[in-house]
């Protein structure tokens, strides 16, 4: 038990991402309301963004903004700056996630216009009629 606790504390960022991901997953699969499903999808994506960003972090490291001429002369000590690449990747992932959410919201408006509801069971009942 103690070992597990230490493990959780030592790698807490990974545990948080897994827990967040499961919350999102539950909402996507288990919820009946389509907006809640969409929010679950957003939480799911955010969990992955958190995972990526947290992998770039180093202890006592600063922002990855360096003086070009200094670096060309003396080089840079990689342990003093956080790894900026995962952050940059996640900028793209955020753009993707925003676009998907936008498309999904537009579809929800059309679904609501057609069926007058966003509850999945009510929509399915209307389709069956």
């Amino acid at each position, binding site marked *: 038990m103690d070992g597990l606790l230490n493990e959780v504390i030592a790698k807490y960022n990974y545990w948080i991402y897994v827990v967040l991901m499961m919350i999102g*997953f539950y909402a*996507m699969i288990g919820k009946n309301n*389509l907006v809640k*499903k*969409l929010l679950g*999808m957003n939480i*799911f*994506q955010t969990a*992955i963004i958190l*995972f*990526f960003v947290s*992998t770039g972090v180093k202890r006592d490291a600063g922002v990855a903004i360096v003086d070009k001429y200094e670096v060309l002369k003396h080089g840079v000590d990689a342990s003093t700056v956080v790894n900026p*690449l*995962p952050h940059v*990747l996640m900028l*793209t*992932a955020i753009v*993707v996630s925003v*676009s*998907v959410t936008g*498309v*999904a919201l*537009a*579809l*929800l408006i*059309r*679904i609501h216009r*057609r069926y007058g509801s966003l509850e999945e069971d009510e*929509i399915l009942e209307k*389709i069956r009629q």
Partner: protein
Amino acid sequence: MILENFPALVIAVPLLAAFAVNLLGRLSRAWIAPLVLGSLAFSTIASVVLLARVLREGTVRYVMGGWRAPFGIELVVDPLSGLMLVVVAAVALVACVSVVKSVEQELPGKDYLFFTLLLILIAGLLGLVVTGDAFNLYVLLEITSITTYGLIAMGPDRAPLSSFNYIIMGTIGACFYLLGVGYLYILTGSLNMADIALILPGLEGQVAVATAFAFLLVGFWVKMAFFPLHSWLPNAYSHAPNSVAVVVAPLMTKVTVYLMLRIILTVFSVDYAFYQHAAVQSTIVWVSAGAIVCASFLALAQRDLKRMLTYIIVAEVGYMVGGAWLANSAGLTGAVLHIVNDAIMTLCMFLAVLAIAYRIGDTRFENLTGIFRKMPITMAAFTLGAFSMIGVPPTCGFFSKWYLILGGVEADQWGFVIALVVSSLVNAVLFFRIIEIGYFRLEEQDHAAVHGNGVAEAPLMILSPLVLTALALLVVGFGSGLIVKDVIRLALPAGF
């Protein structure tokens, strides 16, 4: 100079044409057809030239924007991706010839918006085929998916709801892929596929590598609708407008299967994927066998031609995944050959659906009575496509199925072999039922009164691509020996 830049231009020309279609198509509809067909014709010719060059000189690596790999993004055209480029570009071109016509009827007034999305989708698919960067692959995967969501939602009635379910499933798939890339990045510090492949061999014992591999595979399986993760596909494809289904159905799942092969062959070694976890390998073949059988029987329960075909697509995905995981030369050859053949077969079937729906309105079985008399050429092409789906020689479907069965026998995977045979028999039942309804069942009087008795084929713009595709089934069938010998053999890793 321009030849040097072909790997980038293959993608860039349809992408730029997409924006040109949006601007100029708004002003005048006369711009749309030349822009769409011109850009796709360029991509097709360029990919044929590229494939010829790759077969002559070996793999072409194109550096984007002067940033050398592994730091920059590179485009890689090797025999496998060259073959896929030709297939994707040619299928898209042939499909678009008929789509230009059918969109006028299906989505009047929205055609410039439709083709903007469609061209971005095709550019994304071409990009997926050639990219050599794992994260770039994620972005392109989402470009193709988001445009597909939009295109499917253009359909009538239930289309937005089906598209929404596809969004949820598709995003789960993409997120799993992204997670896998994240694990690989933590382990290797690189995103370039070839570079990761160089670093991975020292790390193969680690659980994290297996986790990354599993995440990547599950991501692709959701995206390619591998049974039992297929639930989104039949609704999404059958509620989509026919003009969308005819492009998306032959290409999306096939490109995703190619991506799975790419990850197995280029990033992880064959050794790691197939041999280090023998239990996993045989389990996947068994699941594929289950996928083939279940999807075939689900197809049997359908009462609409288009919906029936969507279940056949799910079964065909089982063929390709199972064939790849047989982990021997014949199985892998069969899987790659089946990607090519299935793209052409599915195109043929969906072009026939497009032509029928253009004249009759929909493709429900009860409306197909007497269809052979009304549309003899369409149905002749359809029958040829059906023979290929069943696997009758000399159509191309026979040859890939033959390789898959040989691979199954060689690997002692009798479950997979039986599934292939059962699926062929079920396909035969499925298509002979259509032929029975369309050829032998007598037309009802009132039905005849509505639609008239004479021959009423679809317009030439829809009919000629269909006939061309049906002939391609035979040409590729006769040429499959050459394709295997000259292209696929080069695409497989050493020892296969």
